[in-house]
């Protein structure tokens, strides 16, 4: 079929970066020793496309209650509520992340160890610096930890591995959030509705882009 070009670009970029990241020894460590592989099967080559699927329907989930608390808190640090949309936790983004790292596919399996080790690291760091769990930290304390790991290219060497985890976790959080109706609304995706005709961009868009 000629794979159709869409706005997949950031994803392609991300995969490139993930590959680059995976070349580092520490990242390999996290992958290899993170967690045992998932024995479940995928949905196969003839899944029912009309059904509604929820995390846990197709393969067992992974996160413990403690890991869920850490992941939920981190999701909300990454996507807190604001005037336009709710926080990630309100949209159950952590369930999507759990589904993702529990999936029996190579990409997701590679992410599994990174996420589980990363969540451990978040707790270790919280305990070390503030003697509390990550979920119990104040917003300021959470930011103190996240600021050090939020951008891998500029992270200090000792935070590089954690920063790679954070980048992946942030990717997944956006994936879980912006694919929901509330996420659509937040960024202004207003499609997937039947139209009589396609009118093209309205005048205010043409003006904005400099086409009139």
């Amino acid at each position: 079929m000629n794979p159709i070009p869409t706005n997949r670009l950031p994803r392609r970029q991300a995969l490139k970066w993930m590959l680059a990241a995976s070349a580092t020894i520490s990242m390999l460590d996290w992958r290899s020793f993170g967690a045992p592989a998932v024995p479940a099967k995928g949905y196969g080559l003839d899944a029912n496309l009309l059904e509604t699927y929820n995390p846990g329907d197709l393969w067992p989930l992974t996160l413990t209650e403690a890991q869920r608390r850490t992941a939920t808190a981190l999701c909300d640090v990454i996507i807190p509520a604001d005037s336009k949309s709710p926080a990630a936790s309100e949209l159950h983004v952590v369930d999507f992340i759990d589904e993702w790292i529990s999936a029996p596919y190579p990409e997701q399996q590679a992410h599994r160890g990174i996420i589980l080790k990363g969540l451990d690291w978040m707790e270790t760091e919280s305990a070390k610096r503030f003697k509390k769990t990550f979920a119990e930290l104040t917003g300021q304390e959470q930011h103190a930890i996240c600021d050090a790991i939020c951008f891998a290219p500029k992270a200090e060497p000792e935070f590089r591995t954690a920063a790679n985890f954070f980048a992946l976790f942030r990717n997944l959080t956006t994936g879980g959030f912006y694919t929901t109706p509330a996420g659509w609304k937040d960024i202004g995706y207003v499609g997937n509705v039947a139209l009589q005709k396609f009118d093209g961009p309205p005048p205010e868009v043409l003006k904005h882009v400099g086409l009139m």
Partner: protein
Amino acid sequence: MPFIPSTKTQTKYDVIVVGSGAAGGQTAYVLAAAGVKVLMLEAGRRYDPVSETPMFSTNHHAPLRGSPTPDKPFGFFDATVGGGWRVPGEPYVTKRPGSDAWVEASATDVGARQNFMWWRPRMLGGRTNHWGRFSFRMGEYDFKPRSRDGLGIDWPFDYKDLAPYYDKVERLIGVFGSNEGLENTPNSSPGVLLPPPKPRAYELLAKKVCAKIGIPVIPSHVAILSQQQDHQHIPKMLHPDSPAMQKALADNMQTRLACMWATHCVRGCAIKANYQSTTVHIPPALATGNLDIITDAMVREVSVDDTGRATGVYYVDKKTRADFHVKARVVVLAASGCESARILLNSKSAHFANGLANSSGKVGRYLMDTVGSGLGGQIPALENAPVHNEDGAMTMHMYMPWWKYKEQAAGKMDFPRGYHIEFGGGRGMPEAGTFFGMEGFTGGSYGKKMKEDLRRYYGSFVYFAGRGEMIPNDDSYCEIDAEKNDAWGIPVLRFHWKWSEHEERQAAHMQKTFAEIIESMGGRVTSPPQLDGKQAILPGGFIIHEVGTTCMGSDPKNSVLNQFCQAWDVKNLFVTDGGPFVSNADKNPTLTIMANAWRATDHLLEEMRKGNI
């Protein structure tokens, strides 16, 4: 005559058609319309787009939010059933870079790590259920490449021979587009094309800047109904001698609705607004009462009699694993280029020790795909655009046809053949990966700042994909693997593949061009353009335009088929899929497969009428 089990076949059919996609659908349609009794065999399961297409389903309720997986490489909602880059139990054999060992193509490890990739569904309608629907005519030059630049092979006929069939196919399936009169980019006859949809903002921006750098941006040609078809006139035009077919077609046309400008064609279409064999070719063919269809029927061999005539085919009924033989006056292979070649090579007999129709030794030879390479950009002018619906026909409304024919003719380019540019972008339905890796733009923001950043960047990305002509070469072909059989006991294919410098230089040129367009749009590339063609080019088979392997020609010594897709060696055997192609112009092959199949089938009918076959 309808869908039947293997136990209910008639004693003898006029024609057996192997395959149900663009070629099989078109061939069976033309035969059934002419009153010929047809048996269609499809290796996959029965499939009904009307009841099975996930229209309007959202990623929110799909596994992994619809992300691609090895089970569904184009995402969960892709219509493909039973296959993809692998078909369980039906392996193919390739090489890995840096190794001479033949290995089974991997289920999960695809991409640049194997020399050739082969996409196969196992479903009624085949790849037409999910394809991109781009429907570009080959032009005059494209049929005579060797005459123009001394490379490759000329087709044994001219554009003008196929032009009437392009008109017929476009009228039948419904194609939107426009006539621009550009070089080697043929117009359709007046009234044939449906009106194209309006361009999106990023498409208009590309058009504006490309005008300055000399690249035409024109409405795309896509097999999607931008309005309902004229069911009162088209059936009469297409089938003047058959009131029954006029009625069958008119009835089906009235069940096809115009596009709703939502929900992606890759899923198929429950309202039949796009072309797929299962909604356009097969229903009216069935309505004539002249077509039987058996699904889950894996053809392994064409049978021949003592005189070397084809007598029918052997197939495995996948549900019962039983072997069946069905008979017909004529056999048409339309199983896709490589699969049809595989059937021929596996049809060995006393008469045909090297496989059927292979006295030239050319079966499997001249395997081609399309040159593919892509580059993305981020365009500040598109940031923070007012909220609006950009779904449209989902696929591109505009594209860039090849524009440097004159420079090539004058010897000013370092590669001989052209490419067109497909592009996408805009405010599509968010996928799980839509915002992966955004730290390259946001500097690693998170929290409220990231939410603002993503609102700003959403819709500001564009992606350009080149689709270029590959010249057939001696190092790219398929053959039977001496050791491996599939789960049905049928020997499998192995693939030899090599891009030449012609394709690699073209891929490098694509990268340079895309970077220039992106910069002209005021944007920045999201990764550096790859100017090493070997690195820029995608693996063979990746664009899923594999053609060649049963080449047509005017000399039985160096071709498998005559210009009507009739085997030189076996006159009641035809191949109507992409196999007969002797060049693979930068015009996506499906429309040409259909036009060529229609022309070949007209010839087949004429030969039957004359009693020659």
